């Protein structure tokens, strides 16, 4: 309804469109500045943003894991419209593949394990999806929820997978120690370069998590590129059609089941990748890291941000993971406040913080429709 109204009057271009209209060199420069800012973020220690009660580098890594997971889940929930309540299962599969191959039953280096973890997670997505994607939406929710729980309980009960203690001594990503990067100290009120607190560029150690965050940023960038390519391809259009009206899509010759399965597999692969990152950073994993609650938080990230819009889900992931860490001083009340925030968001921004923009095609189709309707009214 609102879109047709918008189409009647010439709307002022919003921020997104204004940025899109900038000349290419300026856009590139803006992107580079933004990327540099993201990489420097843990060193800048900006007041109010930095978490006072927990290591900021570690928090940023957690946030970036959520972003990665949310991007993966967005393919399943946002693009293909499949409600997945057990996404943590794939995350666990990825982490445990790394754990088993590198520590528990093998000694492969971390870098080798990552592609295997992605493949195993993908395979588990296909194995779960092939029989269950035929059931309707709400049933899929409970089936995937069951899958998440089955994975977790299997991890607890299987000695081969380390049981409740989990797997420790997972090797870290390989690094090259090149140079030290200083951080900035704000304790005097003015920013001062602090040469005492430095981060070694690309040393994946046990106390300084900033390099892991950098690694995660690179991975997120790669996944984003992949995401954009897939979304704009024939596959992305097939997902959109399936999500909007499965029967119509099927009639138009879209093999909906195959595309749903593909979405499931790709989502699972990204979930597995995030799990592998998590395992590499924390060095040990146990079933408690993969509670059902995490699935719900992941889904909350996607929905709060605006399912179907990749920038929206990134924002949602940041909101869901960062704020509970930032306000740790209200430790007791933070889940309560988080719950209230979810309710308020749901009520006042039901489409999410950044709702997906209608694609250009849809807008054009709307405009054409509008012209037709006007013409009839005129005659």
């Amino acid at each position: 309804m609102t879109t047709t109204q918008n189409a009647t009057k010439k709307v002022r271009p919003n921020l997104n469109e204004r940025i899109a209209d900038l000349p290419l060199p300026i856009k590139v420069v803006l992107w580079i500045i933004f990327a540099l800012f993201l990489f420097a973020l843990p060193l800048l220690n900006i007041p109010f943003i930095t978490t006072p009660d927990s290591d900021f580098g570690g928090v940023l890594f957690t946030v970036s894991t959520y972003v990665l997971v949310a991007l993966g889940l967005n393919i399943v929930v946002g693009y293909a419209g499949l409600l997945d309540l057990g996404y943590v299962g794939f995350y666990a599969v990825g982490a445990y593949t790394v754990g088993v191959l590198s520590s528990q039953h093998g000694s492969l280096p971390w870098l080798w394990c990552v592609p295997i973890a992605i493949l195993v997670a993908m395979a588990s997505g296909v194995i779960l999806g092939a029989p269950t994607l035929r059931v309707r939406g709400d049933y899929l929710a409970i089936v995937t929820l069951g899958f998440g729980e089955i994975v977790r309980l299997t991890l607890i009960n299987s000695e081969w997978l380390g049981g409740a203690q989990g797997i420790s001594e997972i090797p870290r990503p390989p690094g090259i120690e090149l140079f030290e990067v200083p951080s900035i100290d704000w304790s005097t009120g003015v920013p001062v370069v602090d040469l005492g607190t430095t981060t070694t560029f690309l040393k994946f150690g046990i106390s300084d998590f900033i390099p892991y965050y950098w690694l995660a940023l690179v991975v997120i960038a790669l996944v984003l590129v992949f995401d954009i390519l897939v979304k704009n391809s024939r596959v992305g259009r097939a997902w959109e059609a399936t999500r909007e009206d499965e029967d119509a899509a099927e009639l138009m010759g879209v093999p909906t089941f195959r595309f749903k399965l593909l979405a499931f597999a790709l989502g699972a692969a990204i979930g597995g990748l995030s799990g592998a990152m998590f395992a590499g950073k924390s060095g040990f994993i146990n079933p408690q890291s993969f509670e059902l609650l995490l699935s719900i938080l992941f889904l909350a990230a996607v929905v709060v941000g605006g399912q179907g819009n990749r920038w929206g889900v990134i924002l949602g992931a940041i909101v869901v993971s960062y704020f509970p860490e930032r306000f740790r001083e209200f430790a007791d009340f933070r889940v309560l406040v988080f719950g209230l925030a979810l309710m308020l968001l749901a009520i006042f921004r039901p489409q999410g913080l950044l709702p997906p923009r209608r694609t250009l095609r849809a807008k054009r189709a709307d405009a054409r429709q509008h012209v037709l309707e006007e013409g009839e009214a005129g005659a």
Partner: protein
Amino acid sequence: MQFLIDNFWALTITGLTLGAVYALVALGYTLVYGVLRLINFAHSEVFMYGTFAALWVVMFLGGKAGGGTGQVIFWIAMMFVAAMTMSGLIAVLLERFAYRPLRKRNAPPLIALISAVGASFVLAEVMGLREKIVAWVGLDDNLRAYVRNSRNAVGLPDIVAKEPVFTVGGYAVTNVDIFVIVGAITIMVILDQFVKRSRLGRGIRAVAQDPEAAALMGVNRDRVIQVTFLVGGVMAGAAAVFYLLRIGITRYDAGFLLGVKAFTAAVLGGIGNLRGALLGGFVLGLAENYGSAIVGTQWKDVVAFVLLIVILLFRPTGLLGESLGKARA
């Protein structure tokens, strides 16, 4: 396997009592799903508040082990009153504050799930932080007995002595077992008749079948939805009393796993279908017990979910199919 054969009756009876609780909670999911096509994720907390209400009323009345028969009946009756009132109230409030604003704004269905998750967190945490909240209001001196150790499990005083009534295949069936199974089935028969025969029940079925046509025929949709939540909450309250009598302890997060199981039961029987919820609850309770006897107790929950997946593969709409609206008048 031998263990299953040896303990068949014990497993059956305990499975049925557990299944009765699942079934009653599952009714709440099924009813709401029937009229709103929405998973009421916070229903587990509605149940949890019921357990606490039942517990507190016993504490308030000074219930303890060794009361006379009249006293025990009075305590249990009061438990039902308190739990059903509390759960019904929470369910109605939930509808009012978490769902109705969304409905008014025509929000997409998934966002209702997020609102429900939020409400679920809020409800569970308010219960988990009750000690601090009460201290903050300044009532901690009066209410200490009720709110102390709010993050730990709280036990019900042993008001009902479990006595064997008769033996089946070597298992002594206790009065509590009988009470839970018979009580749950009675309540469900009443509900079934309510939905089938009463005016409000007809409204519920009408909205489930076709909300717009129902509205055109003069059914007040908001009112029907409110009643649906109330009925679901009251059922959860009854389930809470049975649960408390059976298990004996509760905690601020006791609702979560039970909620997941009950929802599984609802889907198993065919969501939106009242009799399906009953069947699903009992099937799930029994299957869990038999399954864990065969493969080990630690796999109990895995059995439940594997069963669900297998059944959905062969009967994609659950055992009895989904049809609150299509239930015969």
